Structure formats: C-alpha cells, structure tokens
C-alpha cells in the first residue's frame, strides 16, 4: 500500500526557528547569525561589533563551538551576557539548541543577540535558527574561490564580510571576482571589506547593521 505523505524533512527546524522568531518579535530582539570557516575572524568581528553596537543597544551573545569555552570567555570579559553552546561534535547549530538556551538570558534586557555559528562553510547555512540577518565571513587567506565552492552559505546571507583585508597584499585574492560571483548567487548581498585588526571598513558594516536593527526594533 502506498501512503502519500508530503512532509518537509527539516520541518521541525523550520517550526522551531519560527517559534524563536515569534518570541523575538514579542520581546523586541534582533538576532544576527555570524557564519564562516574556522579562524575566519568570527569572534574578532563580534568583539569589534559589540564595542560599537553596545553604545546603542543591549547586546547578548551565543557562542557556538564543538567544544570548549574559549570564545565565550572572551565575550564574558567584556561584561556582556554570553552562553556557550557546545554541540558535542555537530557541525552546525540547529534552532532547537537556540530555543533551549534562551532560558539562560533575561530577554527583557536584550536588544540584539549575536550568534557565533560553528566554524564551517557548509551546513550551518542549511539551518535557520530564528535569525533576522545572516553575516557570512570570508577571510582573505582562505582564497577567492570559496564563494564558488560553497555557494549555499553565500547565497543565503544578506551580508558578506571580506575579513583580514589588511593582508590583501600578501595573497592573490581577486576581490572583484568574489564580488561578481557573490552577486550572481545572491543579487542583493551587501559586501564589506573589513580588517578586524586595523578596524578598516568596520564603520560601514556597523552602520548597515544599525539601519537593519532600527528597522525592526522599537526603542
């Protein structure tokens, strides 16, 4: 006997992601999902973003890592509420994990939650986690072919940060090519050239995020 089913396989993740979205809508919270390879500069960028955005918003951070507390400790030192989410080997964060972790925050005291996803260019892109915006980081030393090789990440992100721009002269990194490939995958992508070391380019990114945040949350 044949039974017709037609059910989305990742439906539970979508449902859960929508539930988080509803909660954040009510609580007036904006969520930023930061994704990129191991070592691309996710934590460095988040630290720099906190320093700017905390002038305007109450920030909290969820640090995703397969193991360890290293990144969370860096954020804690800045006196920012942070919870480390260890995935015990899993290569991405799912919405369910975010939902479970929200109880550790006082949501009435938060305007913006920044999530550092697992260092991985592949499957974090397949899982919505209730975010309002996706920021993909590609650092210059990783090479200018990564957008081409990992299209899903870049076709689902609103913002692409080309990080470690201070190192551009040491690498054959064709940023025009990256830009044109990224635009073909994702015509509306916003691209920023940033150094989290010299802070070059950071202002433009902060302003773009501020505009996006202010569109959603009422202060």
């Amino acid at each position, binding site marked *: 006997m044949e039974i017709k089913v037609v059910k989305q396989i990742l439906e*539970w993740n979508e449902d859960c992601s929508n539930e988080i979205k509803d909660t954040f809508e009510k609580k007036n919270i904006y969520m930023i999902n930061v994704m990129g390879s191991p070592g691309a500069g996710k934590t460095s960028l988040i630290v720099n973003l906190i320093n700017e955005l905390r002038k305007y918003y109450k920030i909290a951070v969820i640090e995703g890592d397969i193991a360890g507390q290293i990144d969370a400790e860096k954020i804690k030192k800045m006196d920012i509420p942070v919870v480390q989410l260890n995935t015990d080997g899993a290569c991405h964060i799912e919405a369910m994990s975010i939902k479970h972790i929200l109880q550790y925050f006082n949501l009435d005291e938060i305007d913006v939650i920044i999530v550092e996803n697992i260092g991985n260019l592949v499957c974090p*892109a397949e899982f919505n986690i209730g975010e309002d915006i996706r920021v993909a980081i590609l650092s210059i030393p990783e090479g200018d072919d990564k957008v081409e090789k990992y299209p899903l990440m870049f076709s689902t992100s609103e913002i692409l940060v080309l990080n470690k721009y201070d190192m551009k002269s040491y690498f054959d990194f064709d940023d025009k090519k990256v830009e044109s490939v990224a635009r073909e995958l994702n015509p509306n992508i916003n691209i920023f050239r940033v150094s989290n070391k010299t802070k070059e380019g950071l202002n433009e990114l902060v302003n773009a995020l501020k505009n996006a945040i202010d569109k959603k949350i009422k202060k």
Partner: protein
Amino acid sequence: MHELSITEGIIKIVESEAKKHHFNKVNSIKLVVGELSGVFPQLIQEYFNIASRGTIAEGAELIIRRVEARMKCNECGNESIIERHRLRCKNCGSLNVRITAGKEFYVDSLEVD
C-alpha cells in the same frame, strides 16, 4: 552528524504516519531532494540504515528523486535551469530572477505493508 539529523527527521515522519495508518513494515520511502537543498543523497541510505535500527522504518529502501533547480526571469519571463547556483538570466542577463524549483526536501510517500 548532519546526515544523522536528517535521517532522524525521516524516521520521525515515518513514525508519525505509523500512528495514523497502523502499518507493520515500510518497504520503501520516496524522498524528493532539490539541487539547492544542500543535501547530498549519496550517504543518506547508509546513515538511515544505522539510525532506523529498532524502529518501524528499519529495512526500508530510500528512493530519491532529484529535482533540478529552475528559475524564471522577472524581466523577460525566460525560464531555465540554474547551473552552479548562478542566478543570472540566460536570455537577457538580468539578475532579477526568482527560483521556481530546487529547494525541495521532503518525504513524498511510503510503500508499506
């Protein structure tokens, strides 16, 4: 790890159908997987065999139908397949296109006894 959460998702769907329809054995499960879903079907069967042990889905064969990615141009109306995720109209070159197929990832039907 990621394949595991997918196979668990498939098993959950089969189990919830089993509650409704009272079958004892699942011979095959038809999946529809779009090219833009990010899922690579080659390994799913093997993970499934492991994850389904002891469940009602144990022993089922996965039959996977791939759906090619397609787009339609908002400027000239041209329809074509999407190659390598490239969203540029093949007729007029516009980037103003919408994806019409390729994101599917669902259980279509079960063959049961």
